C-alpha cells in the first residue's frame, strides 16, 4: 500500500493560476522519489502540501492520503514526527545556537522524557559523527555539517517520510556528495521513504526508484529512472536535466551502433562499461579526428598567448586576510584580473572564496598586501544573497533607482513620506549618472536599461515585489541592477546557487553575451560544470592560497574527483574533455 498517495490533487495560490494540476502520484514505503523541473514548476509546493504544518495558503482540490488517512486529518503529533521536512538553506532552519540544543529541539517539542531524549540524541549524533561537535556553536560548522545537523534533528523523531527541498543546493560538491550518500544509506538501510527535489541530479539519479518530472504544475514524466531518461531525452528542455553520463550515452547512440540490449547508464561505472562496449568504434575516431583535435589545441594556445597580452585591470599583491588572529583565511594571494576575461574561483566551503571576492571588489580591506586597480574603474558586485540589494517596492523601481532623476523628482524625496521609498543613494547615484550621461543622453541610458531588461527577460517581473521572485529571478534582477552602473568588472558571488539547469543555461548565455561586449566577470562558484563550460580561467583556493590558476581544461583534467562528470566518464578516451561540448566536438556527435 502506498505511503503517500495524491489523488487528482490541484493547488492554486490566491489569485493565480494553478500551481499544481491533476497530480496523481503513489509513493510506496521505502521508495526514493526525485522531483525535477524548472523553478516555478511546483516542486516545492508539492512537497510542502504533504506537510500540514507548512502547507502553503491557497485553494486545493483532490486529496492526499498518508498511510491511508487524508493528510489534512492527520494528527498533529504524527505529522510532526513521522514526516520530516528539510529546507534548502541550512542556516535559516536553526532555532538555537548550539548543535545539541538544535538536535534536541524537535524531541523537546514532542514532550518526551529527558532520558528518552538523551538516548535518541546519543544514537543519532553517533550515527552522523556529530558527537564531537555537540557543544559547538552552529556558526562554526561548515555548510555540510549544518545540513547534517538539520537532518539529524529530523531523524531523532524517527520519521517514516523525509521531504527534502533542494537539500544540497547550498553545499560545495564534496559536501553535497557526502550528504547524498547519507541519504542513500538512510533509504537503503533503514527504509526511510524519501521525496527530494534537486537540480544537480548526477549523484542522485543512480539510486532513486522513481523520477517525477514536473512542468507547469503537471506531471510530465513519472517512471523508473532509466525509462524516464529515454522519454525525457526526446524533450528539448528536459534533456538538460538528465545526468551527463546518460546524455553522453544518448549522443553516442544516435551516431554509433551499440550492441543490443544496453541498459541506459546512470552512473560513472555503468557509463564506462558502456564506453568499453563501444571501444573499437571509439578508438578509431580520435585517430581520424587527430588533426582537428590538434587544431583545437593550437587555437586554445594562441588564445592563451593573446590573453597574456591583454590589459591587466586589477591586481592583488600578497593579500592576507583573517577574521580572527588564530584563523587566517587568505595567506599571501597574488592574482591578476585581465580585461575581458571570465574568471571563476572554486574551492570548498570556508576556503575564502567569498572573502577574496570581497577584497577584490573593495568591500573588505586586506589586512596586509594591496589591491591595485585603475582609478576610473567601476565595479559591480552581486552578493551571495541577492535580497541584500533590494529595498524598493517593485522590481521596476529597483531598476529605476539609478536612472537620471530630475529636480522635480528630487523635491518629492525630501518630503517625509518619501523617506522610506525614496532614498539618498538614488539621489546620489543621480548626480554621477548625470555626470556620465549629460542630460541629453538620458534616453541613451533609458535605452540601455530596456536592453538589459530584455536581455534578462525581466519585463514580466517589473510589477512584482523583489522578495516575491524566485531565487533565479532575484539573481537576475541583482545582476541587472549591478550592470546599470556600467561596471568594467562584475563580481558575482555564487550566481548559480539553487538555480535550475535551464535558467543556468540562460544566465550563462547572457553572461557570455555581456563578456563579448567587453565586460570582465569574476565569479565564485561551487558548480564545477558551470565553471568548466563557461569560464576561461579557473582559480582553485585551498589552505589559504591559490592552489591552481589555469584554464578549466587543465585544472579539471588533472583531477580525479574534483572534476566534471563528463570528464570522469571519458577520462580513459579523451582525458582533455571536460564538457559535453568538448566530447561532441571530439567524437563528432
Amino acid at each position, binding site marked *: 500500500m502506498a505511503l503517500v498517495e495524491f489523488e487528482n490533487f490541484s493547488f492554486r495560490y490566491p489569485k493565480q493560476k494553478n500551481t499544481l494540476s491533476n497530480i496523481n502520484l503513489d509513493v510506496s514505503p521505502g521508495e526514493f522519489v526525485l522531483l525535477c523541473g524548472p523553478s516555478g514548476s511546483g516542486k516545492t509546493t508539492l512537497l510542502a502540501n504533504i*506537510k500540514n*504544518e*507548512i502547507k502553503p495558503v491557497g485553494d486545493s482540490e483532490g486529496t492526499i492520503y498518508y498511510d491511508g488517512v487524508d493528510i489534512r486529518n492527520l494528527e*498533529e*503529533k504524527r505529522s*510532526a*514526527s513521522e514526516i*520530516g*521536512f528539510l*529546507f534548502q*538553506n541550512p*542556516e*535559516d*532552519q*536553526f*532555532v*538555537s*545556537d*548550539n548543535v545539541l*540544543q538544535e538536535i*534536541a529541539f*524537535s*524531541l*523537546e*517539542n514532542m*514532550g*518526551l522524557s*529527558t532520558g528518552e*531524549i538523551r538516548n535518541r*540524541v546519543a544514537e543519532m549524533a553517533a550515527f552522523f559523527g556529530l558527537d564531537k561537535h555537540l557543544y559547538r556553536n552552529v*556558526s562554526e560548522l561548515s555548510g555540510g555539517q549544518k545540513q547534517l545537523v*538539520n537532518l539529524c*534533528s529530523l531523524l531523532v*523523531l524517527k520519521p517514516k517520510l523525509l521531504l527534502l527541498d533542494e537539500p544540497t543546493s547550498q553545499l560545495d560538491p564534496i559536501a553535497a556528495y557526502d550528504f547524498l550518500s547519507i541519504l542513500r544509506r538512510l533509504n537503503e538501510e533503514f527504509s526511510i521513504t524519501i521525496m527530494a527535489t534537486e537540480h544537480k541530479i548526477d549523484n542522485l539519479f543512480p539510486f532513486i526508484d522513481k523520477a517525477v518530472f514536473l512542468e507547469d504544475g503537471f506531471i510530465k514524466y513519472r517512471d523508473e529512472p532509466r525509462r524516464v531518461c529515454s522519454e525525457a531525452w526526446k524533450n528539448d528542455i528536459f534533456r538538460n536535466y538528465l545526468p551527463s553520463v546518460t546524455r553522453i550515452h544518448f549522443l553516442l547512440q544516435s551516431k554509433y551502433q551499440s550492441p543490443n540490449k544496453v541498459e541506459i547508464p546512470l552512473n560513472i561505472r555503468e557509463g564506462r562499461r558502456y564506453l568499453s562496449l563501444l571501444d573499437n568504434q571509439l578508438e578509431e575516431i580520435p585517430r581520424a579526428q587527430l588533426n582537428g583535435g590538434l587544431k583545437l589545441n593550437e587555437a586554445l594556445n594562441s588564445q592563451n598567448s593573446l590573453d597574456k597580452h591583454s590589459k591587466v585591470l586589477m591586481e592583488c599583491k600578497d593579500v592576507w586576510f583573517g577574521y580572527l588572529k588564530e584563523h587566517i583565511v587568505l595567506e599571501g594571494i597574488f592574482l591578476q584580473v585581465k580585461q575581458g576575461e571570465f574568471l571563476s574561483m572554486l574551492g570548498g566551503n570556508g576556503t575564502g572564496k567569498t572573502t577574496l571576492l*570581497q577584497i577584490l*571588489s*573593495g*568591500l573588505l580591506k586586506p589586512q596586509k598586501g594591496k589591491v591595485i586597480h585603475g582609478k576610473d574603474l*567601476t*565595479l*559591480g*558586485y552581486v552578493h551571495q544573497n541577492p*535580497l*541584500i540589494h533590494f*529595498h524598493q517596492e517593485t522590481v521596476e523601481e529597483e531598476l529605476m533607482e*539609478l536612472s537620471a532623476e530630475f529636480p522635480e523628482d528630487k523635491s518629492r524625496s525630501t518630503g517625509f513620506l518619501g*523617506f*522610506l521609498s525614496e*532614498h*539618498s*543613494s538614488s539621489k*546620489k*547615484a543621480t*548626480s*554621477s*549618472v548625470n*555626470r*556620465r550621461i549629460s542630460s541629453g543622453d538620458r534616453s541613451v541610458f533609458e535605452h540601455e536599461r530596456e536592453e538589459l531588461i530584455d536581455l534578462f527577460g525581466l519585463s514580466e517581473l517589473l510589477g512584482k515585489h523583489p*522578495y516575491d521572485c524566485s531565487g533565479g529571478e532575484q539573481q537576475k534582477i541583482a545582476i541587472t541592477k549591478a550592470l546599470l*552602473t556600467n561596471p568594467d568588472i562584475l563580481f558575482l558571488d555564487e550566481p548559480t546557487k539553487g538555480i535550475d539547469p535551464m535558467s543556468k543555461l540562460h544566465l550563462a548565455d547572457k553572461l557570455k553575451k555581456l563578456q563579448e561586449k567587453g565586460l570582465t566577470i569574476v565569479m565564485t562558484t561551487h558548480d564545477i560544470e558551470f565553471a568548466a563550460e563557461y569560464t576561461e580561467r579557473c582559480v582553485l583556493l585551498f589552505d589559504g592560497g591559490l592552489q591552481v590558476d589555469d584554464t578549466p581544461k587543465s585544472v579539471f583534467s588533472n583531477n580525479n574527483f574534483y572534476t566534471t562528470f563528463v570528464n570522469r566518464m571519458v577520462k580513459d578516451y579523451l582525458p582533455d574533455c571536460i564538457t559535453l561540448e568538448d566530447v561532441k566536438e571530439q567524437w563528432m556527435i
Partner: protein
Amino acid sequence: MKLTIIHPAVYVIYYLLLVILAFLYNDPYYMISFLICVSALIMLQGINREFKNVIQFFIPMSLLIIILNPLVAQVGTTRIYVLGSYFITLEALVYGILMSLSLLIILLLFASYNRAVSYQEMLYLFSKRFPHISMIIVMALRFIPLLSYRLTEVNKISRFNQENQGNQKIESRVDKIKKTAQMLAVVVSWSLEESMLTAKSMKARGYGIMKRTSYLSYKLRKIDYLFILVISATTLICTMGLANGFGRIEIYPTLHFSVHESMFNPYYFSFLILLLPLIYLEFKERLIWH
C-alpha cells in the same frame, strides 16, 4: 574547563545569598575575608581574563566613589581639614571605601557566577516555569550574531554602491540618517524574510503542539542537600549576628570601630564557613584533575 558539581538551582541560591550579604555587611574584617574568599574562588575557577576585566572596570569606579562620597556627603563628626576651612569627614571617607569594597565583591561574585552557571543551565531553571520565555532567549541568542552579520554585509554593500556609483561625500546629516534608516530597513526585511523560514522549520518540527520538555536534567544529589544544609544553617546564624550588630559597624554620625575588637565570635566563624564550601569543592576538583 568547568566541572559542574552541584545543581544549578543551588548555585543560584548560593550566589544570591552571597550578593545580599555583600550588601549588608560593612565591617572591614568581614569585608576583607569576603574579598579574599571570593578572589580565591575565582582563581580556582580559573577565570583570569574576567578577573582582569572586572578590575579594569572597578578601579576608576571605586576611585570615583571614594573621592566623590566625602566631597558630596559632609555628614559625620570627625572632620579632616583639607584646605583652610574646607573639610571632609572621616566617616564619609570610610563609607566610600567600604562601599567600593562591597561593589568589588559583588562584581567578582557575578564574574564567578557566570563561570559557574552556564546560560543553558539558567535556561533549564527557567524553562520549567517559563518555557516560552526560555525559548525566546534561545532564539535571541541565535539571532543577535546573525543580525550583526547582516548589518555588516548591508553596510559593505552600501559603502560599495556609494564608491562605485561615483558619488560625492555625504552632504548633510539628514542624508546620513536617511541612509542609515534605509540600511536598517534592508536588514529588517531581510531578517523577517529569513525568520519566516525559521518559523516554518519550527512548526514543521512540531513546536507548540505539546508541552515542551528539556534535554537537560539535573537531579538533586546528596551533595546538593548537604550544601543547602550548610549554607542555610550558616546563613541563619549570620542573620542572627547581623540582627545583633555583628558584621556591621556604625559609621554615621560617628565612626565606631576599634582594630583590637575581638573577631572571634561564633557569628564570624559561621560566616567564614558559609564562604568556604564552594572553594572546597573547586579545590577538590583541582586536585583530582590538575
